[in-house]
C-alpha cells in the first residue's frame, strides 16, 4: 500500500509540480516489450532476472544496486555475492518480493508477461529488455544508466565498447570460412540467423553454415551438414564432444580431419562488454584450426 501511494505521489508530482522537483521523481519508461512503466528514479534496489542485464549493471558501476539475480548470472565474479532467485524465466514472485526491489528487470520473453503484470499489481515496476545482439549492449547500457543514475558510467562503457568492437573486427578476414555451430548432438542441433552466436561468427570473419535458418535453435541432420561441408566445427561446452567419434559423423570432412574449435564461457552465449574479447578469441582459434 505504501509503495502504491508512493507511485501515485510520484505520478502526481511528475504531472503537475515541475517547478519544485522532489529528490525522487516518477519517470515514464517504455521497455522493449512496449510496456510503459512509471518508476521513481534513480532506483536503489534492482532485481535483475536477465544475465546480460546483470552484467551490464555491474559494468556501468551500478552493481551495488543489484539485490537479486538469476542462477545464470556468472559474470562478473562479484555477482555471485548477490542472492540467486532461480532461472529467470517465469520467475518465483515470492522470492522477488522478499528482496524488496524498487525495480525488476527481465528478458523480453512471452513467458514473463504474467510475472510483469503481477509485479505491477504488487506495486513493483518491472521492465523487459531484449538482449540478443551486440547493438543491444550500448543501447541497454544507456537505459540502465538512466535508471540507476549512472549515465556517465554507461556513456564511457558504450564508447569503450564501440572502440573495442571496431578493433576486434579489423582487419577483415581474407576469406570467410564456414562454421558449423554444434550446440547439441543427440539430435544434432545448431543455431540459425538472428542468434547472438551467428552475429559473433560474422564479426569474427566467418559465416554460420546455417545462417539461412530463421530459428535460433534448430535440429539439423548430419546429411545436411555433410552436404554443406563446413570448414570448421565450433562446439560449445566444457568437454570435447564425445559423439564426434561415432561412425555416422565421419561423413563430415571437418569431423574426419578434426577441424574442431571448442569454446566455453558465457561471453559466447550472451551480448556483453566481453563480446569483443570473445570475437578475438574466436578469430584466433578458427585461424589455428584452419592451418
Amino acid at each position, binding site marked *: 500500500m505504501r509503495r502504491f501511494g508512493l507511485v501515485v505521489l510520484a505520478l502526481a508530482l511528475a504531472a503537475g509540480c515541475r517547478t519544485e522537483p522532489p529528490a525522487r521523481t516518477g519517470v515514464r519508461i517504455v521497455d522493449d516489450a512496449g510496456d510503459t512503466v512509471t518508476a521513481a528514479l534513480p532506483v536503489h534496489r534492482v532485481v535483475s532476472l536477465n544475465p546480460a542485464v546483470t552484467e551490464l549493471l555491474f559494468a556501468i558501476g551500478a552493481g551495488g544496486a543489484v539485490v537479486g539475480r538469476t542462477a545464470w548470472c556468472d559474470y562478473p565474479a562479484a555477482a555471485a555475492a548477490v542472492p540467486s532467485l532461480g532461472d529467470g524465466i517465469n520467475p518465483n514472485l515470492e522470492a522477488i518480493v522478499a528482496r524488496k526491489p524498487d525495480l525488476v528487470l527481465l528478458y523480453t520473453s512471452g513467458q514473463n508477461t504474467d510475472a510483469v503484470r503481477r509485479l505491477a499489481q504488487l506495486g513493483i515496476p518491472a521492465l523487459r529488455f531484449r538482449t540478443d545482439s551486440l547493438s543491444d549492449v550500448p543501447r541497454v547500457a544507456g537505459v540502465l544508466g538512466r535508471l540507476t543514475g549512472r549515465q556517465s558510467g554507461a556513456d564511457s562503457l558504450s564508447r569503450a565498447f564501440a572502440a573495442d568492437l571496431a578493433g576486434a573486427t579489423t582487419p577483415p578476414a581474407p576469406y570467410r570460412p564456414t562454421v558449423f555451430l554444434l550446440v547439441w548432438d543427440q539430435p544434432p542441433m545448431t543455431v540459425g540467423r538472428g542468434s547472438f552466436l551467428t552475429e559473433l561468427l560474422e564479426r569474427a570473419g566467418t559465416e554460420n553454415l546455417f545462417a539461412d535458418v530463421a530459428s535460433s535453435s534448430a*535440429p539439423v541432420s548430419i*546429411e*545436411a551438414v555433410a552436404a554443406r561441408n563446413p570448414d570448421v566445427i565450433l562446439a560449445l561446452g566444457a568437454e570435447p564432444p564425445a559423439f564426434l567419434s561415432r561412425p555416422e559423423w*565421419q561423413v563430415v570432412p571437418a569431423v574426419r580431419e578434426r577441424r574442431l574449435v571448442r569454446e566455453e564461457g558465457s561471453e559466447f552465449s550472451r551480448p556483453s562488454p566481453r563480446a569483443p574479447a570473445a570475437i578475438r578469441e574466436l578469430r584466433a582459434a578458427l585461424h589455428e584450426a584452419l592451418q
Partner: protein
Amino acid sequence: MKRLGLLLLVPVSLVIGLWAGPVTFTPLELWDGLIHPYADAADIVRELRVPRVLLAFLVGGSLSIVGASLQALLRNPLADPYLLGLSGGAGLGAVLAIALNPDWPWAVPAAAFAGATGAVALVYRLSVVAGRRLDPRVLLLAGVVVGSFAGAIMTTVVSLSEAAELRRAFLWLLGGFGASSWRAVWVFSAYAALPLVLLFLSARSLDLLSLGEESAKHLGADVERNKRLVYIATSLLTAASVAVCGIVGFVGLVVPHAIRRLGTPMHRELLPAAFLAGGAFLVLADALARTVVRPLELPVGAVTAIVGVPLFALLLRRNYT
C-alpha cells in the same frame, strides 16, 4: 491382391527413403552413390541414407510386431509397445545420461536401454508377485504404475536441470533416426533376430491367447510359458528400438489394427504383414521427417502420428461403409 500391394509397398518405401533427404540427387547420382564407393554421392548415400533407411525399416517392423503381440497377450486393442512402463524407464535413463553428460558417445542409447529393461524387470516382478501366474490385467496395471513412477522421477530430474537440457532430453525422446550408422544396423539386427523369431514362432499361441486364457488352455496351449515368452521378447525388442531412435509412437499401436482391418486376423499372417507394413510406414515417415522442413528435421514420432491418424481414419471409414 492385398498381399501383392504390401509386398510392393516395401521396395517403394525403401526407394523413396533412399531418395528423400536434405540433399537432392538425380536417380543416376543416387545409383552411382549406391554402387560406386568413390562417387560424389557415395558418402551420403552409403554411410548415412542406407543405414538410416534399414534401421527405420527394422525398427518400424519390430514395433509393429510388438504391438500386434501385446494386443493379443493383453487382449487389449489399446496396447502399444510402450504401454508396460518401457517409455518411462527409457526416458528416465536417457534424461539421467543427458544430465550427467558422460564422455562416451553411446551413453544416451545405452542408458535408455538400461532404463527400459530395468522397468521391464520391475513390471515383471510386480506382476508375478501378485499371483503365481502372469495375469495380463496385473501386468497392465504394473506397467502403467512403473511407467508413471519413472516418469515422475524423470520430470523431477528435468525440472532441476538446465532449461536447454530439458528441451534436448524431450527432443531425444520424441525420436529420430538422425544418429543411424552401419554399426547401429548390425547391432540392432543381431540383437533383434532372436526375439523376432520367437514372436513369429508364437503366432499360434497368440491366436489362442487372444481367444482368452481359458479357451487357450482347453485348446492345449502352455499358456503360462507362452505369455512369459511373448512378454520378454516384446520388451527386449522395444527396449532396443528405444535405444536406437527414442520413442516413436503410433506405429506399434495402429499398424497391427490396420492390417487386421485389411482382413488378416490370424497371427501367422498378421505378424509378417505387420512387420513389412510397419517397416515401410516408418521408412516413409522418416523420409517426410527429414525433407518437409529441410535442412531442419522433425521428430519422426510426430510425423508418424500426423500422417498415420488420417490414414487410419480413412481405413476405419472404408470398412464401415
